[in-house]
Structures are given as C-alpha cells and as structure tokens.
C-alpha cells in the first residue's frame, strides 16, 4: 500500500491545531510538541515532530491510575527500591510473549532514574573503551559521547575489538524489530570479550508472541529496561538494570546507600502491579494495524511504532535533524498520538 503522506501531514497539523486549542483527547507532554500560542508558525514547526518521539502511549486508563497514586507515601518506605527491583524481575518473567533465556541469572536489579542513568553509568564504567553502536540507535548516546570527547564509532565502520563496548537496543530503536545484525554482534562481542549491553526499553511493547533471545553469553554483562516507553511515566524516570553480579558503579552505590528516588520506585511498582508488561501490546495491536493501513505505513514489532518514508524534509535534511545531528530516526513513526486522540480524529474525519 502506498504511503499517504498528504494525510500524515494533515493529521500532524490537526493534532497541533487541536493541541493549541486544547481540544485533544490527551494532550502532549513535551513543550517541543505543544504549541503554546495558537499561531500557524508554531503549529507548523511543531507538526514536524508529532510522530518523532519514542515515548509510550498515553493510555487513558493508565493515566488515570497514575493520577491516583499516592507517591509521597513511598518517601517513608526505605525498602521501596528493593521491592521495585524484585518485582520488576517477576513482572518480566511472568510474560509468555518473550523467552529471555538465562534471564534468571540476571538477578542483580539496580533501580535507575531512567535509561539515561543506566547509560551514563555504562559510559563511566567503560570510559577508557571505545563505544560501538548501530546506525539508527538512540541519538542521545552519540550526542553525549561527542560532547564529552569519548571515543566511539558505528559498528559498520570496523570490526569489534577487545577495546570496544557495545550497546544495542532490542527491539532496535530505529526499526522496532530485532536488529538484523544482532546475532553477529553478539558473536563478535563474545569472541573479542567486548562487553555488550542489551537495552530492552522497547521489549514490553513487543507484538510478536515468540520472541526469543539467549542471554547466556558472557559478553552480555547487563540488560536494561525502562518504563518510559511502556507507560506514560516518562517524566518520573523509572528504569532498571539487571546484571549477573553486582556492579559497584555510581547508581549501585547510591542504591546501596538507600538514596534511590523513592517516588519513582513507588510509582513504578504500583503501575507494574496493576498492568501486565504487554498491556499496551495487547490493547493497541489492532490500532497499530488500522493506522498503518490508513496511512500506508509498515507496522513494526513494537506496537506504537510504524516505519515509512519521512513526511517532512525536517529531520531528514542535514542540519535540520531533531535535537541532534545523530538523530536519523525520521523513518520511524510513533503512532501513540493517533491511538490517544481517537475521538478528536473521528470528529475531524480522520478516523475511518
């Protein structure tokens, strides 16, 4: 089916006009996606990044539940981060949708304030190494490495060596599918004893029912999850890193000192206790297919993502990338704003 770029653009504009007029079913959460003034210049500029975020679907039921959480009570609970860490492992293990072979060995949970905290700790711990990454990975890595003067190259620019450390999001951030080179990357990391971090940030939203990955490779020292792509808690910064052995880096030392962010741990624990890990995948799979059919996009294995050609030159033109020169995720569409605003889009005639 041919991509309907006209409709994608119109909907992007409609969502931004609706946002400026406070008419959306569920408003956006970031100032770069919320026109403050109802003027065409701002609506036009912000329409270009309507589908660009990787963030979770702002599901109404989950939002309502979160609003009802008394997070402050957790400030008085010294055990909340431990409860969070233990429950997270159970919560992942309970899902039959994916088979993480060897996950049981990754018992050392360590609460992190968002994926960025576990990434930063990975950088610190491996600061003398060279960082390797696939093209299309989360641009934030490269932006940080560049600005801190750290050594890094894309994986396709040369063989992985023993001086390298590697990060791969699985499913992959750009495509919403397992990276086509993942198996080879693991093999090379194992061969050269190069540490590999597998970031499962998008795994909870996986639609396929038979995902299998073998974590029994020595090179896989850490795996990580964040709730920011699963539930609308992205600004609470709730994430976790699992490892086989305790890693005494800054986040672990802070957690051992019992100074973890208890508000985030409490919110994360309650949300996990209320909703299964694949809640969004189950609830929105049919919507993903619907919108891909309407817009001529290709569904990915992550329920809120589709792939397609960029709908605007912004993002795909050198010097006009969103946020960072390393952001080349403009072929990935976050369908969340469509799922969230069904009533608004129906009224406007965009939801057939």
């Amino acid at each position, binding site marked *: 089916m041919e991509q309907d770029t006209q409709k994608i653009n119109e909907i992007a504009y409609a969502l931004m006009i609706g946002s400026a007029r406070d008419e959306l079913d569920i408003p956006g959460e970031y100032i770069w996606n919320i026109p403050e003034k109802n003027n065409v210049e701002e609506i036009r500029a912000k329409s270009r990044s309507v589908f660009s975020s990787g963030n979770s679907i702002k599901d109404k039921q989950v939002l309502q539940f979160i609003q009802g959480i008394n997070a402050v009570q957790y400030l008085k609970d010294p055990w909340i981060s431990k409860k969070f860490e233990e429950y997270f492992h159970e919560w992942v293990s309970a899902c039959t949708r994916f088979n993480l072979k060897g996950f049981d060995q990754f018992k050392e949970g360590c609460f992190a304030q968002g994926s960025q905290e576990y990434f930063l700790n990975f950088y610190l711990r491996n600061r003398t190494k060279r960082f390797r990454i696939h093209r299309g990975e989360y641009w934030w890595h490269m932006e940080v490495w560049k600005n801190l003067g750290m050594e890094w190259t894309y994986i396709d620019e040369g063989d992985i060596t023993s001086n390298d450390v590697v990060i791969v999001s699985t499913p992959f951030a750009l495509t919403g599918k397992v990276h086509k080179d993942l198996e080879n990357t693991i093999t090379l990391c194992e061969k050269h004893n190069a540490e590999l971090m597998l970031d499962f940030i998008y795994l909870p939203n996986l639609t396929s029912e038979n995902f299998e990955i073998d974590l029994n490779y020595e090179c896989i020292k850490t795996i990580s999850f964040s709730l920011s792509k699963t539930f609308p808690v992205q600004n609470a910064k709730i994430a976790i890193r699992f490892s086989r052995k305790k890693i005494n880096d800054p986040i672990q030392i802070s957690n051992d000192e019992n100074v973890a962010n208890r508000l985030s741990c409490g919110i994360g624990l309650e949300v996990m206790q209320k909703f299964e890990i694949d809640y969004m995948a189950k609830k929105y799979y049919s919507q993903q297919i619907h919108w891909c059919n309407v817009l001529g996009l290709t569904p990915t294995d992550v329920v809120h993502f589709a792939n397609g050609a960029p709908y605007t030159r912004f993002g795909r033109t050198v010097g006009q990338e969103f946020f960072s020169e390393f952001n080349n995720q403009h072929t990935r569409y976050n369908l969340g704003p469509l799922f969230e605003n069904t009533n608004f889009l129906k*009224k*406007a005639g965009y939801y057939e």
Partner: protein
Amino acid sequence: MTRFEFYFKNINNIGAKIPQIEIRLNDSTIYTGQVKNQIVTEAMTMGQNKLEIAFVNKVNRDTIVNAHGDIVKDLNFELDRVVIDHRDIEHLIWDSHYRHAGGKIDGCLFFGPLGSFILEFETPVLKWMLKTNHEKNNNDPEWEEDYNYYTEAWNKIHKK
C-alpha cells in the same frame, strides 16, 4: 468579511486638533475618523487588495517651528502594526510606501506630511505572507504544501 486591526502609536496632537485618517480598501472607505491606538473594522477583500491609510487633516500650520527652524510641535503619528484576519503581517508592513505631495517614500510608517500609506496584499493573508517571505528569502520551498495541509486540517476540525 475580513477583519482588520490597525495599531497606531506616538499620536501627537496640536492643541485640540487630533490627526484624522481615512482608511480605504480597494478605493472604498472602511473607516473615517480620529487616529486611535487601535482601530478595528471589517471589509470585503478580493484576491489582490490595495490598503490605503490617508492622513487627511494636516495643514502647514500644524507644524510649529522655533526661531532656528527646528520643529517643536507637529501633528503626526506612526503606524505600529496591521493585523488582517487575526494575523499580524509583521515585517511585511514595511513592503509599503508613503505617498505625499513631494513624492513616495518606501517602507515609511510615519505619518508626517499629508499623504497616504499604501500596502498591497493578497488574501488569504496567510498564504500571501508565506509566499512573500519565501520570495524574499528563498528559504521555505514547502510553504504552499504546508499551507494546504494547515488549511485542510483547520477546515476539517472546524467542519468548514
């Protein structure tokens, strides 16, 4: 009907005499009276339009000079902004001229001598602004596509 908002500033009287203007759109008068900080009116536009703000009550004795010939008092005012259909035309206000007995001054918002501020514009005004800006700066090749997306979405939301 198209809504027009005119914003004036630095309005200087001479005694009790206040500057008077006549605003014309395509040679039809749409306002006559004193200059105020804000004047709002409505008029029918065409595709191509000529807006004229005529300063109509200035005479020689409204300019008072001292012994050295310096102006010490003067009947005058300035145009600050023009808003058409809720859209401030911003810098395009300078794509105008001021015609007076001594000739024509480009991009003049000061009403000193008896004369008229003249601005040619097109409606829809947003389309005209995007097009003109691109013609000036050559930096917005998608202006027309984006204009169409925007208006289409706007019309669908508002069931026009």
